[in-house]
């Protein structure tokens, strides 16, 4: 079928966990029988027409990566303005014909605080912007046999644009896109080779933000050692590590320092990997500890929640160390006991890209093919410093902002800055 499985950083982690989570969740159904009523109130109260509020509060998926605390309406307007600059889009504003949209989640469901939630947020934002007709349809997949009938259900309800979330829906999306050429599809975190005439694929140049995060990490590190590890050595994971290492190298170059990176070798394209995205796997914590043992005091674990065992290790050891989050602003998305640990998060703006795809459809400017999220189109970015804001010197913060601006302007090519 010629599928290319590049973008996976987000999709893989839930996937590996899901199998286990699914087992557990299913068993929960038995438990739920006891407290059925409570479960109902919780489930329905949150999921009904009120979804936007729930997600806004809970997931921190608000689109603009640089300022996640902004109210939703504001970011929506900001996004409309930037649409013109986004690759794969031609015009913004103007006449919009609201599109009937439908979103199919993968197994993690819409409350996953991760990419499903973010994609649904994107649909909600598109409704707010007038690009999508009221009451877009949300279909959660309970198991892998649901993908096809959920897409069928979207079609039966007259959807003109179907958003499929995640890698696991790759094949179902391809099949249905071929069978329904009059319907547009947007798939998150999946690339096709060759492209399909009615599918837009959302992929991300996350190394641009990781580069700035590397520069920042090098600036705040007291030991002069930055650590990183990933779930698997696959492009969408290693791109974070590449960016980090190049950013640290750029810091050394600029400031005449000798900050080292442990856990990723840009030349060899190899480094430290847990082999799992399951935060419960003891291998995750022991890998983190071995890197802490080498003196690292800023860590970038790449892959869902595999940063949490590292946070626990840092707390247990009483180290003055920090973590760099990935994908969603970890300060909001992750458990509160780790809030002091997040230096910054390298964010991947799924909501904004989903929203743009729908908006392009509404304005008639929609094009298929891969759309790369970058700093320039605000689909990749750095979060606020949150708890670390006081510990990042003003000149360093200014330098990081300058780097972000330079990458955006194209004066720094983050993917090709030499290391060593």
């Amino acid at each position, binding site marked *: 079928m010629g*599928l290319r*499985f590049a973008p*996976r950083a987000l999709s*893989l982690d839930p*996937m*590996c966990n*899901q*199998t*286990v989570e*699914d*087992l557990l*969740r*299913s*068993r929960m*159904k*038995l438990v*739920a*029988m*006891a407290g*059925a*009523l409570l*479960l*109902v*109130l919780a*489930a*329905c*109260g949150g*999921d*009904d*027409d*009120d979804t936007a509020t729930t997600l806004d509060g809970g997931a921190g998926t608000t689109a603009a990566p640089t300022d996640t605390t902004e109210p939703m309406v504001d970011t929506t307007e900001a996004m409309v303005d930037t649409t013109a600059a986004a690759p794969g889009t031609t015009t913004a504003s103007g006449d919009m014909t609201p599109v009937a949209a*439908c979103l199919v989640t993968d*197994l993690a469901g819409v409350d996953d605080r991760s990419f499903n939630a973010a994609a649904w947020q994107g649909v909600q934002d598109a409704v707010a912007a007038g690009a999508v007709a009221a*009451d877009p*349809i*949300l*279909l*959660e997949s*309970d*198991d*892998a*046999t*649901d993908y*096809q*009938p*959920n897409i*069928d*259900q*979207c079609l*039966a*309800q007259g959807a003109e644009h179907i958003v499929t979330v995640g*890698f696991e829906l790759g*094949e179902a999306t391809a*099949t249905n896109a071929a069978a329904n050429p009059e319907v547009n599809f947007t798939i998150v975190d999946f690339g096709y080779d060759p492209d399909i005439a009615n599918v837009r694929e959302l992929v991300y140049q996350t190394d641009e933000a990781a580069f700035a995060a590397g520069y920042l990490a090098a600036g705040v590190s007291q030991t002069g050692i930055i650590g990183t590890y990933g779930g*698997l050595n*696959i492009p969408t994971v290693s791109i974070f590590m590449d960016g980090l290492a190049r950013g640290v190298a750029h810091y050394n170059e600029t400031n005449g320092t000798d900050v080292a990176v442990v856990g990723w070798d840009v030349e060899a394209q190899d480094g430290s990997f847990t082999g799992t995205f399951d935060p419960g796997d003891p291998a995750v914590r022991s890998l983190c500890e071995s890197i802490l043992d080498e003196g690292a005091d800023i860590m970038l674990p790449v892959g869902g929640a595999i940063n949490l065992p590292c946070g626990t290790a840092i707390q247990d050891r009483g180290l003055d160390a920090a973590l760099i989050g990935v994908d969603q602003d970890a300060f909001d998305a992750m458990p509160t006991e780790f809030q002091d640990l997040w230096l910054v998060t390298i964010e991947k703006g799924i909501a904004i890209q989903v929203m743009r795809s729908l908006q392009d459809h509404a304005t008639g400017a929609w094009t298929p093919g891969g759309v790369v999220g970058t700093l320039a189109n605000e689909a990749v970015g750095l979060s606020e410093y949150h708890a670390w804001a006081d510990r990042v010197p003003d000149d360093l913060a200014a330098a990081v902002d300058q780097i972000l601006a330079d990458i955006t302007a194209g004066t720094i090519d983050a993917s090709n800055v030499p290391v060593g």
Partner: protein
Amino acid sequence: MTTTPTKPEPLPPPPAPSTLDTVTGAGTSLLRSLAMPALAFVTALIIGAFIIALSNVDLLPQLFSDPGSTLAAMGREVWTAYRALARGAVGSVYAISETLFATTPLILASLGVAIGFRAGLFNIGAQGQMLVGGMCTAWVGIYANLPGPLHVIVALLAGVVGGMVWGGIPGLLKARTGAHEVITTIMFNFIALYLVQWLLSIPLFQEAGRNNPVSEPLRPSAHLPSLFGSSYRVTIGILIAVAAVFAVRWLLFQSSLGFEFRVLGLNPEAGRYAGMSVGGLMTLALALAGGLAGIAGANQIMGLAPFKATTSLAGSVGFDAITVALLGRSHPVGVLWAALLFGALKAGGREMQGAAQIPLDLVVVLQALIVVFVAAPALVRAIYRMKGVAERPTQLTKGWGA
């Protein structure tokens, strides 16, 4: 579980082959045995209606200022939701196909759980048995080069064998060492999951060019033929499942092996005293249960595009099977109806989610409520003020102390 009949059976005893049938409930009147689940279903729907009505956040604030039109709007919402549920379950050929498609693995896996219950064994391992059976099927389906019908049969048998082994081991452990099957079957689920995850990441199974655990697709000769044509997902798997219902009914209530299983469930000491091999029976009962779950696993690969094995091939079927077996009162025909109900709820729930925007969770809640009421017959009797015809005891399982 040890309630004794307080009144004598008012109906003439059915023409059962063995007097023990009346004790195990196999011969009780069909109408009576359907009444309780039906009332449970109705009660669950009524409570569900309140939930749908009250979960509409937009309407709630007006409830007291304008009760008339608010209640009417809520009523419309409930009507829309349930109409969508019904339409999605049985409203079209597509809907019926989807219902039967979801029902197929549930019947098979639940029959396995029901055999375990009858033999006094709480088999929580259907999930793992499906996975291992499915992997064996995948192996045969990918590598064996056989003509169509033969390939299908061999692939299904491979699923049976895989499931039997995975079910039989906890049975053997219980027979030999007394290890409780609740613990071992749960643990075997995890072993199966990670075994499958590993198998799907080695070249023997993993699809070329993939990094994630997905197998090569089965050869077309190993695909289950579809029942209503290729645009509908239901396959001849449903026929296999229905055949299995009658086979298990024969096994449990007409064969001497089934008799021994039921004796084992009711009183293993009596069985041992009568010269039965209690350990052997335990092993066999769980192996048969596993074999049935194995077919369910095979069905999920052979009967579903893109015909590949994944770690999520069992979905939540293995756990839903426990619920379905309980709802069906561990009787094969009861399991058939309960599985159909759950299949219909699953297919209808999708339409409800799409057309009425009611979260899929409500379907889970309805399922849970139905089971709560089935499990607490006294509650339903109290609600409907039924005169107390005492339930005949249905042996489910011995408790933890067994």
